[in-house]
């Protein structure tokens, strides 16, 4: 059985991301990193593929920028990496993205499980995950905290899902798409040997025609980016003879401002 996971390069979460004068999103000279949520899905793909004696493949959809995340994935221990890209592919449109993703999963072949990290940290979305499951026509299990059993022979999966205020245990038939939470595992660091192997790897690029996909016009249109309005911060020092008096004045002000 084949396990597929997706990843992407995103700006480092500590980078100052802003929109420049040309309306482009920039993050200075800060490094890009693997989407932090994907660290968990990559690790889970490696572990589960090993458990079932299968193969783990990682896919990124987008420009060459994402090769870095793919090489990081190979250095961690994924068996194969593929990038999907064609001019005209609008990755900001999640339906476009999901259509290409589903076609790539089908091209890999014999895939029993697709594992996503909970979301993309750059765009802050996860709808592309559900849309990929829908395009594939497979079961979707989100917010998985633990894979309790992956049975390749009987084609079933048993997971523990996180719910608000509790947990839920579910079984489902394979093939399935899951999204995993932080804490499902402890992602490994790329080893020296892994890095050496990954740096020498040639990453194949699949075009939309390789996937046999013709995309309709994007159903969403990116109009533009803008920075958040700058919030004016006013600092006021509260005077008072005693800490109690200061606290009382503070409470009054908070009530006035309807914070309390």
């Amino acid at each position, binding site marked *: 059985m084949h396990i597929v996971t997706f990843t992407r390069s995103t700006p480092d979460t500590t980078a100052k991301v802003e929109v420049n004068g040309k309306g482009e999103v920039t993050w200075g*000279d800060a490094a890009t990193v693997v989407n932090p949520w994907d660290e968990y899905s990559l690790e889970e793909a490696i572990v589960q593929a090993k458990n079932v004696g299968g193969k783990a493949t990682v896919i990124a959809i987008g420009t060459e920028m994402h090769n870095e995340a793919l090489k990081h994935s190979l*250095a961690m221990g994924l068996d194969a990496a593929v990038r999907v890209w064609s001019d005209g592919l609008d990755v900001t449109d999640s339906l476009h993205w999901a259509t290409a993703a589903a076609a790539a999963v089908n091209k890999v072949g014999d895939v029993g499980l697709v594992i996503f990290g909970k979301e993309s940290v750059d765009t802050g979305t996860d709808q592309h995950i559900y849309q990929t499951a829908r395009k594939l026509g497979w079961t979707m299990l989100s917010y998985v905290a633990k894979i309790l059993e992956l049975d390749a022979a009987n084609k079933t999966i048993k997971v523990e899902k996180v719910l608000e205020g509790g947990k839920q245990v579910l079984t489902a038939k394979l093939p399935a798409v899951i999204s995993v939470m932080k804490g499902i595992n402890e992602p490994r660091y790329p080893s020296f040997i892994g890095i050496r192997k990954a740096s020498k790897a040639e990453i194949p690029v699949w075009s939309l025609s390789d996937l046999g996909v013709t995309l309709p016009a994007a159903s969403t249109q990116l109009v533009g980016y803008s920075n958040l309005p700058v919030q004016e911060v006013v600092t006021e020092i509260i005077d008072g003879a005693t800490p109690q008096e200061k606290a009382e004045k503070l409470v009054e002000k908070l009530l006035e401002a309807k914070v309390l």
Partner: protein
Amino acid sequence: MATNTPLKPNLFNPFTEEHEMFRKSVRAFVENELNPYVDEWEEAGIAPLHDIFKKMGQLGFLGLHYPSEYGGSDADIWFTVILNEELGRCGAAGIPMAVGVQTGMATPALAKYGSEELKQKYLKPALLGDMVCAIAVTEPDAGSDVASIRTRAVRDGDHYVINGSKMYITNGTQADWICLLARTSDGNDYRGMSLIVVPTDTEGFIVSKKLKKLGNLSSDTAVLTFENMRVPVSNRIGDEGKGFYYQMEQFQIERLVGAIGGTAGAEKAVRDTIRYTQERHAFGKPLIANQWIQFKLGELLTEIEAQKRLNYYCASLIEANAPSNEVTRIASMCKLKVGRLMRQVADTCLQFYGGMGYMEETPISRYFRDSRLTSIGGGADEIMLQIIAKLEGMEPR
């Protein structure tokens, strides 16, 4: 910024994409596996080196430039440079020092001159992180003056009987073996010494005392005593009587590794100070609005950049198997300059932190204590100057 990756490595920036991938991995390891725990280790006066080294060994971090048949990776010198630059950013200098002892001080001579049996038994487990090791050269009455050591190893059949004492031994309370420099024949000079691998479970091996220090608190430092220790002659590294020469050679890697880590630590201290002085306001403006502060920090970054390029030049000499005198000359310059630079950085940056810098909770106060060692350990500044003077032909005529 140094994070940019050039497409074509050159003398000024020798790192490839592969090197930079490795840097990211080591940086993540330092940030997640070391920095969250350094306060606890500083408080305890010791770090769990067996656990730390096991993790590092599994990732291939400990044996980078060593041969793969002994647990190494056959990597070029630039991976070692990166490892030490990233470890230099650790929140406590005691940890990179412990790693430096393991990979750059106790093991180079064993790898180069040790027997196959010794390398399999002691080098390989050290590089895989299964054993912790230490280098034992300094004695209570012989520090920089290595030729004056008194620890004696007297031949008795197939064994040496070793008596003596060693001082300031990093990793000394938890090492599984030490690389010991002992006198194996009569005389009082640099001839007649040998390097011997001594397992610490040998009868007569005594950790006499765990020393209290000014800084590098997370690193355990010991006084070791040897009472009639019997160690097989086959544990000797290379030829009898050549230990001093092997040790002097071993010192060059140690000095470069120290300079690389020291430079990275100094850069981190300055950049942290820039951030602090941007945030801290006094007299109605950020501290860094004062030109004096900008200029002083600018001067330090200039010195750091120059030091970095000197380090890289030294690494390139080692990579090119340059004549040992030239490596020694440049490694000694690296070591001399970085020790002085660190003292300057620590003093200047702490001053700009003001009272906050004097508080234990502020990282610069730990840096102030930790950084002072570099001008003393691994050959004091004065020894570096003696070496440089000699190699530059400054003897009186």
